[in-house]
Structure formats: C-alpha cells, structure tokens
C-alpha cells in the first residue's frame, strides 16, 4: 500500500493503481471526457491532467493513465492546470461546435471563446470511446474476429473483416471516426454500444417499432417468441448465441427461465 496526497488529502492506494481511480474513490473531482471505467484507457482528451510532484520534480500527467508507483503529491486544481483545462475545452468547442455537452462544460469551467474559425464538425471530439467499445464488446473485438474466423471454416453466417466495425480514419487534423470506406459495415451487429458510450451524442441511432439504423445500416429487431419483449437486433441475438456456442433461441431471460423450470418440473409430473 502506498500513501499519496491529492489536493492535501491523504489517500491510500495499491501500487499501479491509476490516479483518477484513487481520486474518485476519495471524492476528489477530476473532469474527464474520453475515460470509461469499463474500457481501456487512451488518454486522448487530456482533460484530466493533474500536477504530480515526485522527489522535488513537478510534471503534468493525465490522471486516467498515470499509475501510482511511489509517494507523490498531486494537485488537481492549480492555476496552471485550470488554465490548460480551459484551453482544452475551448479547443474542443471549436472541434465540436454543435455539442451541447461541450458548450455546457465550457460554461461551467469558464473556457474562453477563441477568436478562431470553428471546424465544420458536429459533436464528435475524437475521444475514441466508440472505437474502444466496439473493439472490446462489439463485433469489432479481436476475440470476436478470431472466433468468426474459426466459425467461417464451419460456414459462419457473418463475413469476416480484417478490422473492427469502426475505427479512427486518417491522421492529424483530418482524423475522423468511420466504418471502412464509409460504407455500411458488413460485420456490424447494430448493438449500439458505440452510441451508448459516446460522451457528446454524436453517433445517431434511429429506431422504429421494428428496427434500428446505425452507421448507415438497418437492423431488424428480434422479439421474444413467448412474450414478445424486445431482445435487441436480430443480428445481435444470433451473434451472442454464436459467441456462447449455442443456437439462438429468441427468448427473453424471464421466458428462458420459465422454460428451464418447466423442463425440470416435467419428470415430477407437475405439468
């Protein structure tokens, strides 16, 4: 166990724990945009910068990725840090002029309105959360691709692409998030995980009674055979079944439980 101080508060943490987690556990607020507890860190938005002083030397680090390895003093709200945060938010406002979330944060933090031209963008701040979500849980994940390749040998229902559904495209100032060649993706299952983690709501999902459209591709909904409850997209259900190595049964959890219970009760003559 290591003792560190954050804004003068003494905190205890394990070696290698990330600074942001330690701060949050001790109710110390550090703003973030590209961080999600369930996804690997990327350190792209830089909003969570803090000052770390170790053996007399002070440096600026991003708390979401910085592993605590020794006794350090952390300051999360010095003048220098606040100025940087304001600038980062001001820059992001120019990147995503249509985002209410960013505009709201700029107001809250007192970020200046820079006298420079806005990017003709929408709400995307290129934080990369959607890409990471797809890589980890969606059809873009490495585990899935490996599995799909294996299944392809056994006549798998899904074509296997060499990359995730969405990725960061291009580099530098022209970077965007998109599907390969901006075409509707062949392997997307319409799970909406990307839209779910998007901090600014850039990824649009339109839904009707019978289906959902995302990344320019339409998906049919699947409903429970027994009670008619919405299960998700048809592709999602089939994909989940494939990953668990079974045939899809199109049942909601409650009806599946009931069916299992009935099956177990039968030998006892209760039907």
């Amino acid at each position, binding site marked *: 166990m290591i003792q560190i101080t954050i804004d003068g508060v003494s905190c205890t943490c394990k070696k290698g724990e990330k600074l942001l987690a330690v701060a949050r556990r001790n109710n110390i607020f550090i703003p973030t945009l590209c961080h999600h507890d369930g996804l690997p860190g990327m350190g792209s938005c830089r*909003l969570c910068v803090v000052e770390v002083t170790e053996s007399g030397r002070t440096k*600026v680090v*991003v708390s979401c990725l910085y*592993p605590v390895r020794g006794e350090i003093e952390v300051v999360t709200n010095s003048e220098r840090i606040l100025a940087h945060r304001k600038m980062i938010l001001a820059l992001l406002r120019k990147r995503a002029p249509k985002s209410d979330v960013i505009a709201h944060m700029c107001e809250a933090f007192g970020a200046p309105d820079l006298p*420079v031209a806005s990017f003709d963008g929408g709400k995307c701040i290129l934080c990369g959360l959607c890409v990471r979500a797809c890589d980890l849980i969606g059809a873009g994940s490495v585990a899935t691709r490996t599995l799909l390749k294996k299944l392809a040998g056994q006549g798998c229902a899904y074509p296997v692409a060499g990359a995730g559904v969405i990725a960061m495209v291009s580099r530098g100032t022209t970077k965007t998030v998109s599907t390969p060649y901006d075409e509707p993706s062949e392997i997307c299952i319409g799970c909406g995980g990307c839209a779910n983690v998007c901090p600014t709501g850039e990824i649009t999902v339109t839904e009707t009674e019978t289906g959902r459209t995302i990344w320019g591709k339409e998906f049919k909904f699947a409903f429970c055979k027994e009670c008619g409850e919405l299960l998700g997209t048809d592709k999602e259900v089939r994909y989940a079944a494939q990953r668990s190595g079974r045939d899809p049964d199109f049942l909601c959890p409650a009806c599946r439980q009931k069916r299992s219970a009935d099956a177990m009760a039968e030998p006892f003559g209760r039907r």
Partner: protein
Amino acid sequence: MTRTILVCCGTGCRANGGMDVSLALTAAVDAAAADANVCCVTETGCSGLCELGPLVRIMPDDIMYYRVRPSDAHDIIQKTVLESEPIERLLFKDSSGNHVLHQADNPFYGHQKKIALRNVGIIDSRSIDEYIAHGGYSALARALEMTSDEIIREVEESGIRGRGGAGFPTGRKWRSAAVLESSPKYVICNGDEGDPGAFMDGSIMDGDPHSVLEGMMIGALAIGAEEGFLYIRDEYIQAVKSMKKAIRAAEKRGLLGESILGTNRKLYFSVVRGGGAFVCGESTALMSSIEGNVGEPRAKYIHSVEKGLWGCPTVINNVETWANIPVIINGGGKKFAEIGTKDSTGTKVFALVGKVKYTGLVEVPMGITLRKLIFEIGGGIPNNRKFKAVQTGGPSGGCIPASLLDIPVDFDTLKEYGTMMGSGGMIVMDDHSCMVEFARYYVNFLCGESCGKCTPCREGLRHMRSILTNICNGYGREGDIELLEMIGSTMIDCSLCALGSSAPNPVLTTIRYFREEYEAHIREHRCPAGVCKALTAFSVNHAVCKGCMACTAVCPTRAIVQLNGGFPIITKSCNGCGSCRDVCRFNAIEAVKGGRV
C-alpha cells in the same frame, strides 16, 4: 603503388551523377591497366560535402577532387594516378583562393571528428570484408567475452546520450532493461528519420550498415535480447537495401543467427519498413507500427524498457547511437567521455542545410559553437547575405538568432534557449527568410504529420496554422501573438507525446526572438523580409541596377520587362516569388510593402 579511388555515391553525389563518374573511372582504369597495376574504384557512402559533389578521393595520397564529371575520369587516371600530379581545376579553393590538396586541410573537414561516420565515405558499404578490414566486429568479439554488467558499465562511463533527440542516457536505459528477469527482450534501431532536410541516419545506414548492426549486437548481448528490429522509413530505398544485405552477410559469417561466432548466444535481426508516418519516429508509435497496428504513440508512464514491443522489455536507440557503441567498447567509455562536454559527451552528426555555402553531413564534438559550425565548417552564407537564424532539431525544433551564435551546441543548452538537439538537422536561414512564414511552414508540416490522437496537438496545430496563415496574408489581429503563446503552452504541458509537446517550438522561438516581425505583419501589414507574397511587392532600384537582366531570365511570370533598352521594370504580373531578388548580384531589387494596405 596500388591506389584506391573512392567515389562518393551518397544520395547527393548520386543525384549529381556519382554513379556515372564511378563507371567512367572504372572504364578509364581498364583502359590504362595495360601499363600499370593502377588501382581499384570503390563506391562509398556519403563523404559529407554534398554541395560540391560528386566527390572523388584518391588514397593513400589523400587527394580530394570536387564536382567531378565523367569527362574528368581520363585525366584523373592519367595524371593523378599514373603521374601523381594533382589536377588543379578539381581541387577545393579555400577563402583566400589557395588550392587545397588533402581532405584534412579543407576547413569543412578540418574541424570534424568522425566517430559515428568513421567508415562512411571510406569503405565500400556493400562489403562486410571491408568493414572487418577496418576493425569491424572486433568490438563484438570483445563484448562476447565481457559480462552484461561490464558492457553496460562502459556505456555508462562513456556518458553517451540518445542521438535520436531526447538525449536519454543510453547506459541507464540498457541497465533498466538488463536487470529485468522477463523474456523475451528486444532491441530496436530507430531509422525512421523523417525530418525535412535531415539525412544523418540514412547516410550511416547506407554508408556503413555494419556499424549499426554491431552496435545492436552488443546491445542485445548486454540486455539479453535474442531478437532485434531495424525500423527504416520506406523512402530510404538505399538504406533498406543496404541494411538487409548487411544482415544477410552477417548471418553468412556466423555473426548473427543460431550462434554468434560459435558461442551459444542466439540473435536474429530483421528489417521493418515504415509506412510513411513522421510520428512513427516516436518510439511508442514505432513499436505500435512494428506490431502491425496504426502508428499512434501511447502514454510513456511505463517506459519501453519495461513494457515495449508486444509488452516486453525493449531497448530502442537511434541509428547514430548504435553506430557509436562499437567505438565505446573498443576504446573504452572513459576515452569517449573525453570528447565533447561534461553532460553531452562524444560527437554529433549534423545535416547542415539551407542557406549555407557548404551543405552536407558533418560530425563534430558536442559543445562546438553554432558560429564555428555555420561559418567555419559551413563556409558562411552564400552570396554574402546576412545570417538571420538557424533551426536545430527538425521541424519541431526552434530557431536561434544571430545574437546567440556563440552558444555551445549540446543537449541542455539548446533546450534552455527553446529549441532542441533533435536528431541533428541544422537549417540555416539568411535575411531573405520570413520568420512568421517559417513558423507557418513547419506548423503546416506537423499538421499533416500529427497522429491526431490527443486534443492539444491535433486542435492546437490546426488553429496555430490558421492564425499564422492569416498573419502571413495580412489578416493578423491584435492578440494573435498572445493566443499562439497560450495554445503553445497547453501543447507543451498536455500533449501525449514529444511530437505534440515540441510542435510549438518553431512558433514560440520565433515569437521570442523575432517578435517585431510578427508585429510588422499584424500592425503594418508588412513583411520585413519580403517573403509573404500577399504583403510584398518588388521594385528595381535604378541607381544600383546595372541592366544585366539576369532577373528577367528567372522570372516565372515574365513580369520584368525592359523599357526601350533601359532598366528593367516590374509589371503587374509579378506574383511576388522573389526569384529576381535572389538572383540579383547588385542588390538592386528591393522588397517593398505591397498587397494589402
């Protein structure tokens, strides 16, 4: 006496017809061979003085010829080789007009001390035998008999710091990797030299590939690695070829592969070609690229020596650093540390380019002053123009003004003045360079080369570019300078990698040393250097003009006309390129305020 004729076939000389010279010399030797045991012609890597190439050097007399044409081959063989007579027209003329016979007497070479470039331009880089004949691989043999600790101690004692730019102590890096128990470990050579105007690493890989391999082998022995990668930018076709060939030759000789020189140590090297991203010179992006992912840097809170390539301990060093290692092992770290300054030991290779008389590749002891480098070695500024600034360390390096020409060139001093050592680019600018345009140019380059992963670098560069472009076009506003400084400060502190944190250097140093130029652009819509086209017009000063009409010949838009056989007049079709001013030997063409009022 058998002589060797060394023909420089480095990039610059090759472009100037070095290969043709070599062929012509070989033919002339064949023609003359009947009456003499003449000599052999050797094609070497870069000899340094690219400006005066193709270069030919005759050994052992050490007679050096410059700007040699294939038509000179016959004379060289007949006069110099057979009759030991120098040919005056091919010799170097020093500033007082004397002919210089030997290489060492040429001031360009006289001040140099070659360690990393010890064999470049002297041996046939394609031959492992020549390398061995020049003492090559003796350091490897020595290292095989030393313990890992002994090898690292020599490197620590030498004080050598990373030549890729960051200047991290190499010995310390190796030590941290060597103490780790985990396996496998990797060594990597960073040959992704992407700086505009820099060609040090390419020249070493092309001209003496085995020195890099030998350094890497010693490094691998020291840290206990069994595999190494050479990441070379794909644009360096010659370097890629030469490195691959060197690896094959070393494998054939039993220096690489299953067993190094018959010991039980295994070692495999392979070449990985870069995909054209400047950011892949950054070590973590480079490793990501080798792994087959997009070359984006990652946070370095856990160093590569702990978790590098595929999460394994990795030592990554620059080409030049590796090339220095055999010398350190052979001569001892102490001896190496005597060269250079206390905190920056050894020598550094610089690519001296831009507005300097003798552009080329130089290797000088650390701590040399910029003045000596530019004026004594580089011969000063061509056409008797005034020196204005020098940019050190590549596109994200800052610039140093004339008032600081006497500062020593070493890692820490350059940093103190807002620039950096970088990988060793030196771009000299004369008074026809606009510092705002200079900053805009490099920011624009970095805009295209930033990976775009983190906010400060991606967005900061974009706005810096638009602000600087506006200033150059006469649309600058009060407050722009302060805004550039603010954006720059956030980029320095908050960027993810060194590309982002050093990217504002060109902007911040030009503001620091040439603020009045920015102010002239913003407040008076005037470009003092007469470079920014939107703010510049040219006029001919008829009091000075001699009517030679050299300006009309270079004008791309035919804007300069001669009225009734009199002096030239610049008409409205002028596009402000400034070629006429550059070509005028009488300084009769003056830049005046024009364009936006």
